[in-house]
């Protein structure tokens, strides 16, 4: 019973998408101001995403008690796209481009609430990976469930590509008792 109560509370506290989009935008713009190199900004966004991911995974598991350990990467990809993205960004990317070995896949994002109003600044700004936080969050979240992955954008509509494609590559399975690496 208390569980449904919590759910209702969460819903009542929802913020509008615009506020969220503008908050993230203001935030990225500020770090871009503070750091000289765009590469450094991308790195920071990734790190911030990572810190979000390691926390978010617990929230995700709390909301979805039926999600257990995944047996293979296909299952992981499925949960990530259909439940993770749906819960936190309200979109369900499609899973495509599996590598022959089955250790790498792409998520095609159709419509991204983070980038609604964004146009990248000229010059250096074109190298900015605006959505890098999503990569970090996926990396952080999966690391907490013993999966080490590499995550990057290979196409980005903000840079004039036709689609926004996020590539996730499985690196290794982390052992249970091993200490976690610091970020």
């Amino acid at each position, binding site marked *: 019973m208390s569980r449904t109560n919590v759910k209702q509370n969460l819903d009542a506290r929802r913020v509008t998408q615009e506020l969220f989009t503008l908050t993230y935008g203001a935030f990225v713009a500020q770090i871009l101001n503070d750091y000289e190199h765009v590469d450094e900004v991308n790195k920071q966004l990734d790190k911030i995403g990572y810190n979000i991911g390691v926390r978010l995974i*617990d929230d995700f598991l709390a909301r979805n008690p039926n999600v257990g350990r995944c047996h293979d990467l296909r299952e992981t990809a499925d949960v990530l796209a259909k439940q993770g993205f749906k819960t936190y960004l309200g979109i369900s990317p499609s899973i495509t481009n599996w590598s022959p070995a089955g250790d790498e896949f792409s998520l095609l994002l159709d419509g991204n609430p983070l980038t609604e109003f964004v146009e990248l600044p000229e010059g250096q700004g074109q190298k900015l990976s605006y959505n890098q936080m999503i990569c970090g969050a996926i990396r952080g979240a999966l690391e907490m469930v013993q999966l080490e992955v590499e995550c990057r954008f290979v196409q980005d509509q903000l840079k004039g590509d036709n689609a926004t494609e996020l590539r996730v590559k499985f690196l290794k399975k982390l052992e249970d*008792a091993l200490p*976690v690496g610091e970020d």
Partner: protein
Amino acid sequence: MVVYNLYIFNRNGQCLFYREWLRRRPGTMTQEEEFKLMNGFMHSIKSFVQRLSPQDLKDGFVSFKTNCYKLNYYETATGLKFVLNTDNNVGNIRDILHQLYSTIFVNYIVKNPSCSATDIINTEQEIFIEKLDEFISNLSIFAQTNKA
């Protein structure tokens, strides 16, 4: 029914949090030793149970009973371990432990920016402790703890 005490371990085996509601007999070792033993014990019994199992286990190790108390175990996919000791009359409380994790731990520790889900929870996290006490004392299995 009675609730005795609670341990929370992180995936590295560090005891993040300990709380007791009823414990008449003090432990025979230092608390630190007890945490270490408990974690090691959980680790061993988990793998032992898995090895002995005649078929694939779904949840793995869930609980064990002695003649005077029952140890209930719950582990999340992120490697957090919850150990709750109760008396023998308590049934399967997996759901309760999941609720403890999802409504108390996640809400007041994980979502609290000033503490980390992998660090020891210090006594300054009053809101977590308060909510935890409230949660435990509202459980039906807690009913006789104070009378016991």
